[in-house]
């Protein structure tokens, strides 16, 4: 692009209302945020003529300073700043640091509000000035989506290029506003570097941030304290990275809360420290989720399904997901296994992955084996079929090796159910 080197700004002119634009002013540095006020103001219906841009600019300057002071909360301020900084939104460009609105206001006020003569719309305009009229459609003051702002905000562009899913974040308006206001260099970069230090790879950063955009509002010191606490509990660096990846909200929890959770699991499950640590590393959402379902499920296993405590411990260390499984699905699966398939408790304990599979799969395969008269789940007898072979292997292998039938037969059988 011919202009890449120079970053010629085209927005700087009309606030300098005392003089016409001349060529020397082109080389002035670019951080003159005045022009963008035109964007906000061009919605005004009476400002329709392009020719009197000076007067237009004057009018906008007058009223927009009032507008700016009154509209303190919306993102127009950030938009103005960031709009100027991203004329050419390529990542290699040096982003221009934009002045903040307060300084802009002060600069405006220094411009001399008083000594501007009123300009007539019939005044002739030189060719150069005509070229510099910017007639882009204005940025909307408020929007339900971030795609109107993504081309004007460097922060958003960099986030998209990292892989953050903005379409999910824009569903939460306060998160979207936060992201628009944040500055990439100052705030976001620190957190990203912290996450990289933690061990999260670049290609995972996108998914992490899409889920946990609230991490940008956390204090960096707090985050470091929490990581230090986890290290003190003998979680290795790789462990912590894996936990944070699988449960993005982990580091948003305060140290006390993490401590409480870890203590709860240790007391409730009565496992050794090492086993509790392994459990939490495998399923870190135990620390971030609610504890009520876990308590419920423990009662269900003990009282309703009739497992002993050491059996429950064994099953949970094998399949941590059982702690957070749906109670209704658990009872339905167990009911089918125990009462219909007549499998005793001690065999179910050996293969806890049956609780992790969908019930229809167990039913279909069991009925097929029954039809073929191969449904034999007692290890003492010949032709024994292990439960993990029943559920954990794909259809083709199951049909060939266990059922000794073809996949077409299985499909035909399924259509008779």
């Amino acid at each position, binding site marked *: *692009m*011919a*202009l890449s080197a*120079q970053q*010629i*700004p*085209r927005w700087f002119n009309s606030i300098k209302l005392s003089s016409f634009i001349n*060529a020397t002013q*082109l080389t002035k540095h670019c951080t003159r945020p005045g022009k963008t006020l035109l964007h906000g103001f061009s919605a005004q219906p009476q400002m329709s003529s392009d020719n009197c841009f000076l007067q237009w600019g004057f009018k906008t300057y007058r009223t927009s300073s009032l507008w700016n002071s009154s509209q303190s909360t919306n993102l127009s301020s950030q938009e103005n700043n960031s709009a100027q900084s991203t*004329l*050419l*939104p*390529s990542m290699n460009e040096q982003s221009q640091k934009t002045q903040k609105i307060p300084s802009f206001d002060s600069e405006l006020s220094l411009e001399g509000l008083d000594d501007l003569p009123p300009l007539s719309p019939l005044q002739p305009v030189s060719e*150069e000035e005509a*070229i*510099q009229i910017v007639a882009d459609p204005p940025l909307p003051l408020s929007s339900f989506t*971030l*795609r*109107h702002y*993504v*081309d004007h905000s460097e922060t*958003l*562009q960099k986030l*998209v290029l990292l*892989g*953050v*899913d*903005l*379409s*999910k974040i824009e569903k939460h308006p306060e998160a979207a506003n936060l992201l628009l206001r944040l500055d990439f260099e100052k705030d976001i970069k620190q957190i990203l570097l912290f996450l990289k230090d933690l061990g999260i790879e670049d290609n995972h950063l996108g998914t992490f941030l899409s889920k946990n955009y609230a991490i940008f509002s956390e204090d960096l010191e707090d985050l470091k304290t929490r990581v230090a606490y986890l290290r003190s509990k003998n979680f290795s660096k790789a462990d912590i990275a894996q936990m944070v990846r699988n449960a993005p909200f982990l580091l948003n929890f305060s140290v006390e809360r993490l401590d409480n959770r870890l203590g709860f699991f240790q007391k409730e499950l009565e496992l050794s420290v090492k086993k509790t640590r392994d459990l939490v590393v495998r399923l870190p959402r135990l620390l971030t989720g609610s504890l009520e379902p876990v308590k419920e499920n423990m009662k269900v296993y003990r009282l309703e399904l009739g497992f002993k405590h050491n059996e429950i411990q064994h099953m949970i260390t094998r399949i941590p997901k059982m702690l957070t499984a749906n109670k209704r699905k658990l009872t339905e699966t167990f009911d089918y296994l125990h009462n219909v398939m007549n499998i005793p408790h001690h065999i179910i304990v050996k293969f806890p992955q049956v609780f992790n599979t969908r019930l*229809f799969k167990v039913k*279909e395969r069991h009925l097929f084996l029954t039809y073929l008269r191969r449904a034999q789940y007692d290890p003492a007898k010949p032709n024994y079929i292990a439960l993990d072979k029943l559920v954990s292997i794909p*259809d083709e292998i199951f049909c060939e090796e266990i059922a000794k039938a073809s996949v077409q037969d299985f*499909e035909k059988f*399924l*259509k*008779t*159910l």
Partner: protein
Amino acid sequence: MQDSPHFTSPPKRFPTGDVTPPALLFTAGPYFLLSITFSPRTVRKEPLPAAEHGGAHYKYHIWGRDRTALPSRSQFFCEAGLRASDMGSARLAQLNGLFAAYKPPGLKWKHLRDTIELQLLKGLNAGKPPAPEQRVRFLLGPLESSEKKELTLTATSVPTLRKHPLVCGPAFTSLKVAVGHRLDAQASGVLVFGVGQGRRLLTDMYNAHLTKDYTVRGLLGKATDDFCEDGRLVEKTTYDHVTREKLDRILAMIQGSHQKALVMYSNLDLKTQEAYEMAVRGLIRPMNKSPMLITGIRCLHFAPPEFLLEVQCMHETQKQLRKLVHEIGLELKTTAVCTQVRRTRDGVFTLDDALLRTQWDLHSILDAIEAAAPRVAAELEKSLSLGLDTQQLPSPRWPWDSEGLSSALGLESDVGH
């Protein structure tokens, strides 16, 4: 003006449309449409149902020979380098028609419909992300070629992130999938779905009043309140006296009484020639609302206490079929409950056309739609012509109208042609 060329020398390869340029068709205007209505044989390649007027012919000939057949998928994909959204929208354009899925027992029909919608959306949204879009911006800059610094606007193509999938979200977020004759949760079998333009065909299929086939399993000796095996037990009886003969006799009686009802609800005066022809073709059935009518019932397998019936019926619900089993038990001077209701055919869709759970994805569904389209079209044309041959009176509630039936029949059949 000169005589429209379409009267004297119709384009040879019309109606595929690739010879006649569209401009000619449009400029010919009403003369052209008139030509179709009055001299259909010279213009069309094959006859269409007479009910459609010229405009409809015109439309169908441009887009396909019949409503359900669309250009094959390969035509869309033959252009290389189609972007993912283009592929998605090309596949969406193909997603028009009817297909059948096998609903397993225990699954609500609504959940099945939602699952199919999600799977179709997943298939449509899959694909490589499109190349980044560009937008044109007019950038101000000095013309390097000139000696003195001159400002000029250059149009440059700048990458924009506005249409990026991470900013906008997935291209397809919802899809309208309609369900034909519903199945309740405990029943299983063929369930017809319609997507896109196929949803209109569902109404046509409903109005065609085609029969459905079921296999119904019964268990002698019990009676429950909801006629199912797991309902509240009401009565237990002996069934030693039940023989196959008795069962067949009862079924024949049922079929006979329903045959009488069929004729009554179809509102045909049996003394007319049209009615005789229809009876010869075996087509007498009510073409409007009626209570459940059984067109055929027989026993496939009898091994007390279990028995298996095949029922061919129309305007039924699965609960009425279970009640039928209960009533058969009562007729046999014992009691019976229904253990399985399975639909094996719904109109033109049989068990072979039904898609199993592993086949509920975009590709298989597109194949199924293509495979079923010609049969559906043929059946709909047949029932449309049947409906025109015999105009039906509104309902059997006014038997005194049957006097005027034959005269009305004679009148309306003329109008139809």
